[in-house]
């Protein structure tokens, strides 16, 4: 049973990590627009214009 005293704090650390990751993604606009990104992969298979390379750089 003593293993529980290790596993439970460990699970709390994981939850804390998940919350941190979620906050990070919210603050970086990952949840602001949920429609547009769905279209992104559709375009990459054909387009090979110069815009491609530029859009990836910040």
């Amino acid at each position: 049973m003593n293993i529980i005293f290790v596993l439970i704090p460990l699970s709390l650390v994981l939850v804390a990590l998940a919350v941190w990751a979620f906050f990070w993604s919210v603050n970086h606009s990952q949840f602001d627009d949920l429609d547009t990104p769905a279209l992104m992969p559709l375009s990459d298979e054909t387009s090979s214009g110069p815009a491609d390379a530029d859009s990836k750089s910040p």
Partner: protein
Amino acid sequence: MPALTCFHCGEPVPGDPALFARVGALDHPVCCIGCRAAAEWIASLGLQDYYRLRDALPPRASAIGDYSAWDRAQLQRMYVHQRGDGDAEVCFLLEGLRCSACSWLIERAMSAMPGVRETGVSVPGKRVRIVWQPQRVSLSALLVAIAQLGYVPHPLDRQSLSDVIEHEQRAALKRLVVAGLGMMQAMMFAIVLYAGALEGIETSTRDFFRWIGLLVTIPVVFYSARPFFAGAWRELRGRRPGMDTPVAFAVALVFVASIVETLRGGAQVYFDSASMFVFLLLGGRYLEMRARHRATDVVDALARLQPAVAQRLGANGALESVGVHELQIGDCVVIGDGATVPADGELTSAQCRVDESLLSGESKALVRQRGEQLIAGSIVVDGPAQMRVMRVGADTTLSAIVRLVGRAQQQRPRWTRHGERAAAWFVSALLLATAATAGTWLVIDPSRAFAASLAVLVIACPCAFALAVPAALARSLTVLAQRGVLGLTPNAIEGLVRANYFVFDKTGTLSERSLELAATQPLAQTPAEVCLQIAISLEAGNTHPIANALRAAAEHSGTAPAQNVRSVDGGGIEGEIDGERYRLGRPAFALGFDAADSDSIVLANRGGALARFELRETLREDAATTIDELRDAGAGIEILSGDSPARVAAVAVRLGIERFEARVRPERKLARLAELRAGGATVAVIGDGVNDAPALAGADLAVAVGGGAELAKSSADIVLAGDRLGALLEARRVAVATVRIMRQNLVWSVVYNASSVPLAALGWIPPWLAVIGMSLSSLAVIVNSLRIRAVAAPRAAAQAPAAASKLAAVPA
């Protein structure tokens, strides 16, 4: 007839396509030079996939304006935010931003510009935020690039950069997720404790799990539940207890009691109850907030109407572009062809025609002579015109209209206040019941006092009650949005159900802003069809409504354009075909003498009149069926329009509407609405113009038809974004269903509370069961609300599939 449509904007291509855009090694027909430029520029960036991905057509690309004034430091100070690292940041409202493909296109095109660091497009907000390096690219270059894509950019002032709505949405999402994760953890540990209570558990292990439970509940209470505490504090200070007060009380009580129990090793802790409670409430609020944020604000609309830049005539006679806020009374400004008048003033050039349809609803361009007034926000049709500025800023007529809107909005009866009063009553009763339970049990059996009063507080928490209305509303707003109807205020649904008198605006609402040829009447030997061909030849290359109407009526086109074509201001057009001179236009112009003033135009040659073309406004496709169905439902129908009596009467007769009033000013509209409402009617106003804005705000229900001025939308309860009037009927049916569901929800939550509170007060319900009961009752409310869906009308059933397939066809 499958007419050719423009590759870029989808509008019909007039006559034989003379213009082609080369995209992807193919020539596609386009309707105008602007569209060709837009299509080829998009292709040159390698972005032709846009045409495959878009699911809504862009607006027709217009001629690209002059944006050089935006490089002036004085103007930039108001609109551009200088960041610490040398980059600059600006936010535009984009007219014409419609779908996700648009945002994709803009992001790609912007990132192809040198010096642009970051582009963020928000489709729901119609905004784009750009961070760029000012030393590498100028703001005007960015604006031109956006305009080339076919969008009209309106820079928004610096305050809109710190987007309040975005901040609120992000914070709510974070709170919700923290509460959710906290709840899962707390429940997990609570299950151990419940199992331990049944099977036996060591005291030290039990205390360990209690402390862990406390640990995971701390963020839920102190972070996620903070809005409830803040709200309760506000409500108590204002002595008006609302929904937040019992929630804050319950959360604080449960949390503090659980800590006390943990410290003294008592019988029961309730950390799971506390966090579940917070999570469920936040979930409901999140849904409600999302629906609320669909509303657009007045600031956006003003940015659109009032031009930011004016062309000022300097002392030395040279033109300079200046910001509108720099204009002084007495300045001389030049207004170009198709430009918006920047301030109220007096015309100093000889004559011009202005389109005041946004302000007055008058669909005809009005002729203004030297010395007459021009109103800010109206459009000069045949510029350039010169004007001396008389009133600026807050003194203009446009600002007065905006103030009228504000006042009318305040006059609106607030449903919310009723809701708050009911909640305050409910909450006070709840707190009393809790106190009574605690007091009674303290006399009978003090050891059970806490558990019983806690159960009362939790089980009677107006959770289901609080969710009953917002859950149904949120669901119906989603359903409506899928049908192209945006409900912007909580009044929308209520108003749709109750409205029994419908007041329509004419221009842009019942009729479209285009004309159609009603009849061709030959006046001489020449047959009608030949006359029409001559008229089309004369108008070749013109795109104004009359020319479009003539072209649309012709069975075949392809006659050669006329030679030596000359257009005469306010009169008509003159030209030569096969050596013969023709005139086409108002009778006064074509024949040289005045005939009865109507919407007809006359074709004449030297020998006299050849034919008369009678034009009329094109009615919206579904205007007739919508009016018929409303009439069948027993609703009163009336037209109030700012347009001329003849035109209003013509439309009213065609639709079979008996009551109509023409040349109505905004004040008169408000008065008429007040009259109708005093007579007991619940009035819905359907309109689109800015002149309707006060009327819209003064109605019980304000409906704006899409494509209209943004200002009207911002004071509207409902926007028919799909541009279909018939959507109003669908919305009405959804609203009726919503109110039914809402009533069921309210009945259920009241019955639940009424039956469970006595049991809890008697001490028969332990707090954990109270929490489950509360959750289940809320869940029942939510599931019930999901039953709201779009229902086809029995009568319109035949048309509904057609409309649906039309919608479905667009993305393909």
